């Protein structure tokens, strides 16, 4: 009855068959032979790349001179105004961008292409390192580290949270020191975001290039496809557009230089005038906070030409806020009155005015008048919008102010 059921090793079903039940897709085809990547790299090598070592342990290097503006033209004030770290020393600035096998953080994401644009005084040199296969990482990272060494500044776009952590991780896995990456770092993402957030759909580099720099890419490969191109090289030995990936990476750093220069002219020059009014207002807010009140006021003044009354009112109020802090109460009053003119229903403006009259200009009757106007404005708003009009507790605050003013003026005005 139990024939064929004696002790057997558990390999009747092959391990592969058993593994297959846990894997969603069947393998494309059985491929046990080693993958030869040489043929797939031909097009890339033909582009004038230079081998450092050979497969599998070597890497590829592509170098070209580029003409760049003189560094002396970059205002030293730019870094502080844009909230960036200052360069340290006289070494070259290195503009950096990477291509990786994915967006995940963690050790398993491979960085396979790094573009490094060395920007020294009056001259530029763009070097790209490409990792033909992971076995070459040691060679690859030694070369990259040497390229960054001695830099007085690293410039990137979102490098703080993307490129550099991934580079450090992979360098550590290859036991290559990452000290070269620890110098000053100017990540352009944040200063860029501040000037584009109000009018661009996102602050992705591609969007910024188009909207802020007016550049269009001519390459045929979106960056998001780079990981798949690289995976094809590694897992199938196929070239599905390596040159395009390299070109994309090259364009990234070149565009980063343009972005850097444009930002410099926006933050330190007059290029801010080309920005939409709303962006000017955002920029003014940042600069004012960094103590550049005069420049901020100039930007705000420029917003007055805007057709958007609300925006104008906001600009006046912001100007008033900084004028008041500077002790220029009369000018602040002027700005607030202008804001009220631009936006007659502006509740905030009235409240600001009431405060200014009460505490700074000591004009209690006008403070009282403004408070009453604000309160009736609020009531009108509530009639329209129900209880949702105005902030919670705002009417209480206004009533409180009104009573205090009445007390200070000697009883309710109506009884006089």
């Amino acid at each position, binding site marked *: 009855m139990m024939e064929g059921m004696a002790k*057997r090793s558990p390999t009747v079903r092959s*391990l592969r068959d058993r593994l297959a*039940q846990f894997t969603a*897709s069947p393998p494309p085809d059985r491929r046990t032979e080693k993958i030869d990547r040489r043929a797939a790299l031909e097009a890339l090598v033909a582009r004038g790349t230079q081998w450092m070592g050979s497969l599998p342990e070597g890497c590829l290097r592509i170098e070209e001179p580029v003409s760049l503006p003189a560094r002396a033209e970059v205002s030293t004030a730019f870094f502080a105004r844009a909230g960036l770290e200052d360069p340290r020393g006289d070494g070259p600035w290195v503009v950096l961008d990477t291509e990786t096998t*994915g967006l*995940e953080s*963690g050790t*398993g994401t*491979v960085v396979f292409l790094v573009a490094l644009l060395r920007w020294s005084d009056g001259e530029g040199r763009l070097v790209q390192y490409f990792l033909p296969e*992971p076995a070459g990482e040691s060679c690859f990272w030694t070369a990259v580290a040497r390229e960054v060494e001695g830099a007085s500044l690293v410039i990137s776009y979102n490098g703080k949270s993307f490129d550099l952590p991934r580079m450090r991780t992979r360098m550590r896995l290859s036991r290559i020191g990452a000290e070269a990456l620890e110098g000053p770092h100017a990540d352009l993402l944040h200063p860029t975001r501040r000037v584009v957030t109000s009018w661009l759909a996102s602050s992705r580099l591609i969007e910024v290039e188009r909207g802020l720099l007016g550049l269009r890419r001519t390459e045929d490969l979106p960056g998001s496809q780079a990981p798949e191109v690289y995976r094809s090289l590694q897992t199938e030995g196929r070239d599905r557009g390596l040159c395009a990936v390299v070109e994309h990476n090259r364009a990234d750093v070149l565009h980063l230089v343009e972005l850097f220069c444009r930002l410099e002219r926006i933050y330190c020059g007059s290029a801010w005038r080309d920005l939409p009014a709303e962006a000017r207002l955002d920029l003014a807010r940042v600069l004012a906070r960094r103590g550049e009140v005069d420049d901020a006021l100039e930007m705000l003044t420029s917003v007055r030409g805007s057709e958007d009354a609300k925006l104008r009112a906001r600009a006046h109020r912001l100007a008033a806020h900084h004028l008041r802090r500077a002790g220029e109460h009369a000018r602040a009053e002027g700005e607030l009155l202008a804001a009220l003119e631009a936006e007659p229903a502006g509740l905030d403006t009235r409240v600001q005015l009431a405060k200014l009259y009460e505490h700074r200009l000591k004009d209690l009757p006008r403070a009282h008048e403004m408070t009453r106007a604000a309160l009736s404005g609020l009531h009108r708003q509530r009639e329209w919008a129900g209880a949702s009009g105005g902030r919670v507790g705002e009417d209480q605050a206004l009533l409180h102010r009104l009573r205090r003013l009445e007390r200070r003026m000697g009883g309710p005005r109506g009884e006089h």
Partner: protein
Amino acid sequence: MNLQQLLGHLRESPGFTRNVTRWHTLEAQGPRCVAFPASTDPRLRRALEARGVEKLYLHQARALELASEGRDQVVVTPTASGKTLCYNLPVLQACLEDSEARALYLFPTKALSQDQMNELHGLIEAMEVDIKTYTFDGDTPAAARRTIRSSGHVVVTNPDMLHQGILPHHTAWVKLFENLRFLVVDELHHYRGVFGSHVANVLRRLLRICEFYGSRPLIIACSATIANPADHAARLLGRSAVVNDENGAPRGRKHLIFYNPPVVNAELGIRRSVIKEAARLARPFLETGVQVILFGRSRVRVELLLTYLKDSMRSLKRSADRVRAYRGGYLPRERREIERGLREGEILAVASTNALELGIDIGQLDVCIMAGYAGTVASTWQQAGRAGRRRGESVAILVASSAPLDQYIIEHPEFFLESTPEQAIIDPDNLSILLSHLKCAAFELPFAEGERFGDSSATSEMLDYLTEHRVLSRSGDRYHWMADTYPAEDVSMRSAVIENVVIVDTSRGREVIGETDLLSAQLLLHEDAIYLHQGRQYHVDQLDWDRKEAYVRRVQVNYYTDAQLKSEIHALDCFESQAVAHGEKAHGEIGLITKATMFKKIKLGTHENLGAGRIHLPELEHHTTSFWWTLDESLDERMRGEGLNLGDGLKGLAHLLGQVAPLFLMADPGDLRSIPMVRSPQTGGPTLFLYDTYPGGVGFARRLFDLHAVLQEAAAQRLRDCACAHGCPSCVGSSLEAGSLSKATAAWLLALTRGEVESSPRERMQRG
């Protein structure tokens, strides 16, 4: 009246003693101590002395000794024996000697790690040294993480966080991994079954990373009493560890009382409710003002216990606020408040799930009442250990439910009191678990050609397989991660069943009342089924198989539904088989196809058939490991001669073995399933399959094969002890389900195969 007087009173009370199957007293034991070793850092010694620790218990001194010899160890001593010092001592000593030394502590739950921190913090503070200890878990704020990574000397975490948050980012933890001197794994017995099999792989990954950074941490593990601590440690940790189990801690006098609620329906074997009975037993203690902890097996039971306890307090004219519940789902702040209330005596009684079973500090309570067997001997001891720590008298009462496991334990307290038969079982090489972690490991560090992951000889074949699937790529002599995913995200370490159906009550809005695995869902939650939940009837309006949701609605009807399941077992791959009396036992891999086909509506009371319906659900296919027991075909005829029925008998045995087996496996009843087959096409004879519900199995089948005789014995005892007439849920299942001849046939089969029945009268006649 104090506790002693109260116990005296209970002893005299026939209403109580009538239901007590055993009153066991463990006598007090004095401490066995040795002096601090001369090498102990004087600061550490002073700090301990200031806290009243003037000498070390035997096991603590032994722990220090083993650590200094560089030997891995597993400490096996009871609850509240000062186990934590067994690792805190060597770790602090090492940190004092070398400020770069690091230690990683692993606890199964978050709440527990909080508590361990307190003790460690206290010692470090008293020493006034700069040893930084941090908890790193899901609640750790992002801002604190950088500091912890670079400067934490002792990092306390849990396996989930290690798996998802630390190992895949190991390059951010260089300081820790380069200097890791100790790996502490507390509550080792907790890591069993599916969860344990995952954790074993997480530890493989951890040690692999340590090797990359050139460290080799010493392992100090702690476990509750299990039958196989050394073996379990070896499988879980991948290294052999010395068992350190000579307990030197003192113990107060302790009463263990086994209490079986009286039978209310002898025919159906139904006993008085375990919850009500547990609450009733608590009352005299509450009246006397003695602190009580009650354990219930589920959240719902705990809430019920609470309700009854509050009623008692009110009728005793005491504040009902002094009774609280404690379970998962409460906020940490609320938990801390309850723990403090217990320590300080403000709270008189607490009803808890096993959440309080682990070493959370709630001080010394006097009485523990367990409403139902905790599922394992180890857990039961831990719960009982909640009452009475080192001094004074204490009581633990185990109140049995009608479940077969409970009934077995209550009738056989020796099972509990003698050396434990429970083995923690894991299978780190379960293919699906192994594959998941192999991916994670490859993400963390490239695999070298010929490298083994754990002791799996299949590593290189699996790496090749992943390479073919473009998950890895081979370059030089290494395999590199080449996918754009984060593999740790896809691994669920704690869930035994891969997919569940969620049960949604639509009577009032949308309330989730429970969930069940796919296999059960086919039977219980098909459309038009009457689903029973907490004794209430629900009609299943819709079973959305794609979304895995069942929509049910409260009803009151006079029938229940019974679904027919067609099971097919195929691709049998027998690993080992052996002849046993009147048959054969085996274990191996099975492919299981199940399909619910139709259901009957059966009238309550009369069991009339009121109608039937078809069930339209897809087949379920499932690969796992199974134990099976085949009986000689000839027995069928013989049974008929005895007026017995093979089908009923197999059904009954399947139920009985399925319920008794977890006793020996530290498994939950849901971890195993049984299928009786009157004639299995694979074995050719009547066969009973007991299989592991986790795909691929985690080692239960193999163990059941070894335990066959013990299982038979336990099953036979359960049958003998059970007072019902023709079967009840406490033994072979209700006679409605298993058939009216189920109990008799099962008993006969067990007697025969255990050699208690020589041969049948008819056979004797035939032979004569």
